């Protein structure tokens, strides 16, 4: 509709998301600059982008996390905006501030919003204020260990002890009784201080059988719309491996409540850009609780794009360029069911050992309802310095059963020679009746893996 004020976008990320951002920018008629480390010169994103700029040596700390080098690359190439992707500096408030201070556009919310939502205790308080249910626990950071122990007793064990500055599942401990709590809480605090420079902790009730459900929102600083929910209950070591949209078992009235609570919270913080509000859904009681808000585009955004027919990355760039929301809530209609699986350079038959290799023959799945967002090409040497995500295979169909069938078909078409991937895991998972019936929760996958190692090995064996 309206042309974005952004002319040239610098991508301060790598891998499949960099490829995704280049595509979105190009669809908007925006030029692209791929910032990259010395290890990523041959990456698909660098080959695709209009321009490329080296920002440092392989180590992420010296390149993708190097604020000065990234700002210099933007200046040198004449870029007027920076997209941070996910991970790296995407949720670094100081980086968002530095980009703005340099007179450039940060594709995401303001540094203040990132700071607010990145402080878990502050985000929780904000959620409560907006009327969003939160997991029973401490109101804010705990200072007094005796008061904390009393509160833990009151909400009932087991309780989770979390670092206020932590993330990605780090710094979490579970106390099963008061005695354990008195040992673990001070430990968690000193560890958080060492790891994050902030010893603040808070406590939360553990929900034994929970699903991970999250709501996608898009805001322009005033208005906020939601794009329904995703379910990401299949996790290994708190990392998502399989995501779906919508959540198959959510009742319509709960879905409505959940999505409107997400909009209420995003509106309360005048949210600008794409964001995700994460919830735990208690399977036994049907209650949902706010966990955190991610102030960036997420890895699993394509499942939402598939059911809502929206380009979330394009929309976030358009909003950053000064645009208003281009859709109203009543125009957002979801249709069908989408599933995403994460293809990592890891060997699922050998304890998910990472395996950076050289891509040999590559056959990618295609056809109706199939999308493959990835960074691969034949002959590409995967650098060992970054995370193991190679790409995401996404399928869409009219309903979940058909989507599962299509996923099986697409995995059958996929061939990545030269390195092990997590594809055999998904072929094995497709044989699980519990998954077919969606009888899963966040702690379902790990014991399933222990029981089904032979099946995974068998699925992996056919490619070798």
């Amino acid at each position, binding site marked *: 509709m309206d042309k974005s004020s952004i002319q040239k976008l610098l991508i301060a990320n790598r891998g499949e998301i960099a490829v995704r951002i280049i595509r979105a920018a190009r669809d908007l008629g925006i030029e692209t600059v791929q910032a990259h480390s010395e290890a990523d010169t041959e990456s698909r994103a660098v080959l695709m982008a209009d321009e490329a700029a080296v920002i440092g040596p392989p180590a992420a700390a010296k390149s993708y996390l190097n604020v000065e080098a990234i700002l210099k690359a933007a200046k040198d190439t004449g870029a007027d905006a920076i997209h941070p992707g996910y991970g790296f500096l995407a949720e670094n408030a100081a980086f968002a501030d530095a980009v703005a201070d340099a007179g450039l556009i940060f594709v995401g919310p303001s540094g203040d919003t990132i700071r607010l939502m990145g402080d878990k205790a502050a985000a929780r308080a904000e959620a409560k204020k907006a009327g969003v249910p939160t997991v029973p626990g401490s109101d804010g950071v705990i200072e007094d260990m005796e008061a904390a122990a009393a509160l833990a007793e009151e909400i009932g064990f087991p309780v989770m002890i979390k670092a206020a500055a932590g993330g990605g599942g780090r710094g979490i401990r579970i106390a099963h009784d008061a005695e354990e709590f008195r040992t673990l809480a001070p430990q968690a605090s000193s560890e958080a201080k*060492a790891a994050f420079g902030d010893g603040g902790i808070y406590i939360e009730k553990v929900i034994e059988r929970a699903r991970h459900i999250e709501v996608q929102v898009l805001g322009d600083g005033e208005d906020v719309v939601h794009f329904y929910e995703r379910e990401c209950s299949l996790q290994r070591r708190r990392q998502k491996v399989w995501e779906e949209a919508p959540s198959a078992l959510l009742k319509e009235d709960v879905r409505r409540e959940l999505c409107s609570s997400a909009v209420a919270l995003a509106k309360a913080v005048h949210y600008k850009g794409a964001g995700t509000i994460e919830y735990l859904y208690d399977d036994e009681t049907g209650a949902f609780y706010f966990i955190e808000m991610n102030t960036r585009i997420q890895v699993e955004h394509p499942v939402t794009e598939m059911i809502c027919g929206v380009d979330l990355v394009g929309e976030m760039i358009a909003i950053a360029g000064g645009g208003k929301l281009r859709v109203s809530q009543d125009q957002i209609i979801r249709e069908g069911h989408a599933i995403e699986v994460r293809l990592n350079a*890891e060997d699922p038959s050998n304890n998910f050992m*990472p395996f950076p290799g050289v891509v040999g023959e590559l056959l990618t799945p295609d056809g109706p309802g199939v999308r493959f967002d990835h960074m691969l090409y034949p002959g590409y040497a995967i650098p*060992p*310095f*970054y995370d193991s995500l190679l790409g995401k295979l996404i399928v869409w169909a009219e309903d979940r059963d058909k989507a599962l069938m299509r996923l099986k078909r697409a995995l059958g078409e996929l061939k990545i020679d030269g390195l092990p991937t997590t594809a055999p895991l998904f072929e094995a998972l497709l044989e699980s009746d519990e998954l077919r019936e969606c009888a899963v929760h966040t702690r379902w996958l790990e014991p399933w893996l222990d029981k089904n190692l032979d099946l995974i090995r068998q699925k992996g064996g056919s490619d070798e």
Partner: protein
Amino acid sequence: MAKHEVKSPIPGTFYRKPAPDQPPYKDIGDTVAKGDTIGLVEVMKTFHEVKADADGTVSGFPIGDEEPVMAGQTIAELD
């Protein structure tokens, strides 16, 4: 001349210390026994210990702390 070379079996980033604020596992001149940890190699955000596969005295580290390492590259020389 080094009598023995300890090689990294995997590619990644080589670390001589268990954590940034801790002393190195081994320094030049230190004696090592077979099985001692010489350093860490980080591959795709997971850390693997590289252990000495012989006894000896450390005479050199051809790869610096936090530097990239390739599979099969020598990380420590023993005399």
